[in-house]
């Protein structure tokens, strides 16, 4: 967190108010700790991650073997969330699905933040023709509605017969590629205002090279904004993935995700008689995304106070 790399953060007043503070970042984190709601969100997210990535290790049903004698059993002491049509334990499946859904959410967030920040920064810094090209492409992508675009990509995957175990990676790619334009716009806007600031004039006077100005002086200043956007972006990605997988256009079985587990609801009998098949993954999405959003909002208050709450 190179937020303190700008020498503008006057250490003197900060030292008088909070004696122990050494950097703006530490101050921010301390303020974040006082936001109970945000910390609660963070705790829930962490628990969700631990449960999904470590939980199945302790489950006696992690092998996903087919058990014909315990098909579609309602929740019981032995199977806390019941079993599915192949006699697999639903709780274990939900946790295993969570691994995929969370991974897809994180990976596509990293991708879209990387592309968005890089292109937005380049557009805002160089302006001129580079800016024109990048922003016109962004405008174009923003014109075409996201959901039909994702549906087309999903259908392409099916037509090309992409093996089901690779689909997960392509879904990450798809979500990353659809999400960057809005982000690039925001970063570009920040860049345009930052490059007119005094410390940048100083950088010009010092005769620094473009790359150094961009990566050492400008980008560190938008890191707080990026952290906030990135956090909120994970929730959105998890939701998009679940929609795609629910409609059979995203990650497909046997790879479980929360979205394609809810697909059980498309079967009338499962929908009416076996709600334990599709309600738990739905609530898993809901709880994870709400926790991420609450935490992200808390982060915004602390890291980016200029933004409205």
């Amino acid at each position, binding site marked *: 967190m190179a937020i303190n790399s700008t020498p503008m953060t006057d250490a003197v007043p900060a030292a008088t108010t909070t004696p122990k503070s050494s950097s703006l970042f530490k101050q921010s984190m301390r303020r974040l700790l006082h936001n109970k*709601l945000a910390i609660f969100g963070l705790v829930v997210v962490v628990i969700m991650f631990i449960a999904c990535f470590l939980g199945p290790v302790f489950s006696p049903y992690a092998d996903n073997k087919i058990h014909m004698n315990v098909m579609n059993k309602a929740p019981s002491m032995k199977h806390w969330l019941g079993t599915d049509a192949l006699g697999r334990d639903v709780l274990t499946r939900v946790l295993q699905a969570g691994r995929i859904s969370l991974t897809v959410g994180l990976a596509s967030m990293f991708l879209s933040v990387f592309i968005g920040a890089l292109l937005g920064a380049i557009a805002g810094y160089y302006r001129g023709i580079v800016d024109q090209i990048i922003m*016109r492409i962004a*405008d*174009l992508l*923003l*014109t*075409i*509605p996201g*959901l*039909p*675009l994702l*549906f*087309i990509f999903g*259908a*392409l995957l099916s*037509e*090309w017969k992409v093996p089901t175990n690779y689909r997960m990676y392509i879904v990450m790619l798809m979500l990353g590629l659809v999400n960057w334009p809005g982000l690039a716009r925001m970063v570009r806007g920040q860049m345009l205002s930052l490059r007119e600031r005094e410390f940048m004039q100083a950088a010009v006077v010092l005769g620094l090279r473009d790359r150094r100005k961009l990566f050492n002086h400008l980008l560190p200043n938008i890191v707080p904004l990026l952290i906030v956007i990135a956090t909120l972006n994970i*929730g959105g990605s998890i*939701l998009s993935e*679940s*929609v795609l997988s*629910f*409609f059979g256009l995203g990650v497909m079985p046997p790879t479980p995700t929360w979205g394609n587990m*809810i697909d059980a*609801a498309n079967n009338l009998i499962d*929908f*009416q008689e076996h*709600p334990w098949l*599709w*309600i738990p993954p*739905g609530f898993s*999405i*809901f709880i994870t*995304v*709400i926790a*991420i*959003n*609450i935490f992200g*909002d808390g982060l915004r208050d602390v890291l980016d106070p200029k933004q*409205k*709450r």
Partner: protein
Amino acid sequence: MGTYLTKRIIYMIVILFAASFLIFSLYALTPGDFISSNIKLSPERKAELREIYGLSKPLLERYGIWMNNVFHGDFGFSLAQQQPVLKLFNQYIWNSFLLAVVSTFLTWVIAVIIGVVSAYKQYSWFDTIVMVAIFAAMSIPSFFIGLFLIKILAVDLKWLPPGGMLTTGSNATGWAYIKEVIHHMTLPVIVMTLLGVGSLTRYFRSNMIDVIKQDYIRTARAKGLKEDKVLFRHALRNALLPAITLVGFELPALFGGSIIIEKIFNWPGIGQLYMQSFSLRDYPLLMGFTMLLAILTVIGTLLSDVLYHIADPRVRLH
């Protein structure tokens, strides 16, 4: 303003051209078409049909033909339904509009009221509950909440019908027809309102918080005006002003239907039509729908900017 508008409209047309080409290529490049998915046809018949529908021509020529027809107000002919695409849109779009307009109205009313009260009582317990509810509403997976409410309210409690616009086999007319439609649209409208109300309430709340801190509000209070007059006459007006830009952004949602909600509730709208055509690879319809959404998005954005300028002349357009 005049030159600005001309420039914007020219840019809009260029973007739409680029979008149309992108949309066309995406659908055209997807392997498989309406004819190849029909296994009953012999290879000769397939080739013949492709010839008739112009699918055997080179890509650029097909794009040219499509664009030419679009300029003559013809979005093509649905292969699956054997009807002009525009005629089908006209049939389905008003069902979508009905859902959208009612839920948008409810969303705005609820968001303004809760947003204002919540801002007025910032950091109270009411405000905290509202904030949590806002996050909840913003985090719900739309398809899941739809299914969940159908399961509880329609299947288990049998209060509301699970889907469709009319009871199967119903031939109600007049008031009975209207009552039946209202009965059927209640659940989808609840879900759509729930999904939209979160971010909008948050928007009004933060706008209102900003406005309440302004000097002229203090002045109004200092003059001895009643609190509700200060809030609703002086503060709310200014808090609502920026929201006028949102009107334009609602445009695609109003006429573009909601793919997910209409699919879940089996509502005969344009989004549902899109999903049906999607599995059939009915390209003229799919391209038409995506293009329609792109056009609505572009017009909506322009509308927002212009409305903002009209509402607040301090905003300079360039």
